[in-house]
């Protein structure tokens, strides 16, 4: 293990512990013992197979929105709009599922639904890349704003065209069971979407580190001047990475609607975009690392939810834990760059002594 990699694992582990510690300290405001709360959190995630499997259910969309940020980050682009791309994917998957119903064989319909989600989210995302490439529009602002537009579109559709037949709640009718992503661990909610997300993460790793296209993405991200001199079309890279990022976030929308809820519910998973950014940072934007970071955050979400249901600790503790962990991970980047500088100075001195 290289010292650099060791530093990274160690500092991230410390950051996670400190982040959880800071959140625990807040529980004192409610007059609750942090020790009991965390004991409960730890005990509840392993209390039965169903709950344990739920960690991976929660991790599934996080892997995908984490990748949606990590991929653009590698090209030094900022996709803050994964939340909206996620909603566009969910809307398209829902519309396709409701239209298809039982008409076609299940697996074929699922493929069509998946393609519809990817196309919708990909186009929504590539709009950001397009205006960046063509007009130099700030991708950070445009992607941020596009989320609120997607949210308004979802709210509109859920009270008109997509609203359930009873017209009571802002949600759709349930999908036909043939359109549910298959459960692969009986007695749990763990669906095929998790395997899909892991496979996609591995594919993104291959794309980034084993293909010429991925190499170009990284060159553009690392040094855009060098990329231009080397004749790399950075505009094309911008549009394509944003398409892929949108498609990734949209896939998360697909796995949530067809794998977990089997319908579209207003305003679901409202933090999935920000959580994805946190996960990408936790994983140092490495697609394989994103899988593990998502499982960690998934465990916090499952444990935090149960804690909220059983012990009266508010469920907002989940966002607090996520926020603090993220902030401490950012601080650990600072510590690590300090260590890195010290190490290279030491090497330099050793080389001079020779």
């Amino acid at each position, binding site marked *: 293990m290289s010292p650099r990699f060791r530093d990274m694992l160690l500092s991230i582990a410390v950051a996670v512990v400190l982040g959880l510690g800071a959140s625990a300290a807040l529980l004192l*405001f409610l007059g609750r013992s942090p020790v009991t709360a965390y004991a409960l959190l730890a005990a509840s995630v392993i209390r039965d197979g169903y709950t344990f499997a739920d960690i991976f259910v929660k991790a599934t969309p996080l892997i995908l929105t984490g990748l949606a940020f990590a991929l653009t980050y590698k090209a030094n682009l900022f996709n803050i709009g994964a939340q909206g791309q996620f909603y566009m994917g969910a809307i398209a998957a829902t519309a396709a599922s409701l239209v298809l119903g039982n008409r076609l064989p299940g697996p074929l319909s699922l493929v069509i639904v998946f393609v519809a989600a990817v196309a919708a989210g990909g186009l929504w995302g590539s709009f950001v890349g397009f205006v960046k490439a063509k007009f130099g529009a*700030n991708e950070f602002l*445009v992607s941020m704003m*596009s989320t609120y537009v997607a949210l308004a579109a979802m*709210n509109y559709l859920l009270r008109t065209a997509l609203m359930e037949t009873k017209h009571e709640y802002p949600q759709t009718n349930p999908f036909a069971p043939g359109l549910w992503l298959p459960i692969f661990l009986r007695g749990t909610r763990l669906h095929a979407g998790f395997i899909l997300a892991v496979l996609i993460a591995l594919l993104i790793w291959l794309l980034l580190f084993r293909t010429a296209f991925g190499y170009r993405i990284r060159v553009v991200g690392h040094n855009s001047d060098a990329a231009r001199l080397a004749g790399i079309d950075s505009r094309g890279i911008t549009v394509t990475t944003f398409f892929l990022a949108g498609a990734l976030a949209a896939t998360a929308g697909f796995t949530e609607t067809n794998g977990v809820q089997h319908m579209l519910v207003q305003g679901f998973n409202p933090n999935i975009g920000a959580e994805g950014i946190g996960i990408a940072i936790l994983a140092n934007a490495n697609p394989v690392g994103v899988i593990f970071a998502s499982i960690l955050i998934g465990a916090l979400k499952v444990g935090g939810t149960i804690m909220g249901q059983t012990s009266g600790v508010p469920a*907002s503790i989940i966002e607090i834990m996520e*926020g603090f962990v993220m*902030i401490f991970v950012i601080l650990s980047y*600072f510590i690590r760059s300090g260590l890195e500088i010290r190490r290279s100075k030491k090497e330099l001195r050793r080389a001079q002594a020779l």
Partner: protein
Amino acid sequence: MTDLLARALMMSTPLLFGSIAEVFAERSGVMVCAVEGIFLLGALGGFVGDYESHSLAVGIVLAVLVGAIYAAFYGWITVYLKQHQIVTGTAFNLLATGLSAFFMRAVFGVPVVPLTVEPLKALPVPLLSRTPVLGAILFNQNILTYSMYFIVPAAWFVLYRTSIGLTIRSTGENPEAAEVAGIRVERIRFSMVLLAGAMGGIAGAFYSIGYLGMFTTNIIGGRGWIAFAICFLGNWNPLGALAGTLIFGVAEAVAISMQSSGSLLLPNELFIALPYILTIALTILRRSFNVPGKLGIPYRKEN
């Protein structure tokens, strides 16, 4: 029509506070990407202060304190530790979502009926408010909206006509040269982040105690980001920020009057999305940006 314009002016107030503060911070070279979280905690702080003391002033003071303290942490990480501003901002915004719900619960428990305070009242200016048309628009507003009339010229004057303004601008344009001239780059930037926190706190409090008289966790709903965007669109100039906030104020006032009149000619959601669509359109159309030279880039001393 005068009603609509009066409301537009009122709704542009918090956006102006937020965007002017952002102009100062970004002119010094830092983006305050925690703006949404600062607004949200300001809204909470203002509500708690007002509800507990029955005094608007206490609410505003608490909002300023909460905003500035939260911004201080953000400034420490981005200015002194030089970590990435967008990423750090995302973390702070996510944390603020949790903190606001958590402290609402910690302070008030689970109330049976929603807690409310008296929203800010309009204070008509004697005589001036009787002026036809303009009186109703300009001089029948609340105290925070009146303060806009002073903040804009004062901000412009400070930024372009004083040595403090020159210091701030040179810190953002050329920190190395500023350092040589004896300016403490990091200290200037950190102070501007604090200023943005204090003003963002007031902006947030406007929504809770100034306008709605209550607090909900989704009360800000992207308005912090709109203030952030207005700073870009207004070309990092207080006058540009004023123009931007007025446009967005009109959009918001139209949305509110459409919602309350219940006319269903166009979907309600379109009006809610209007400010965001407008921002996207303006970001795309906007040319020849006058971006501060070192915006978003941490300053590292050579050693």
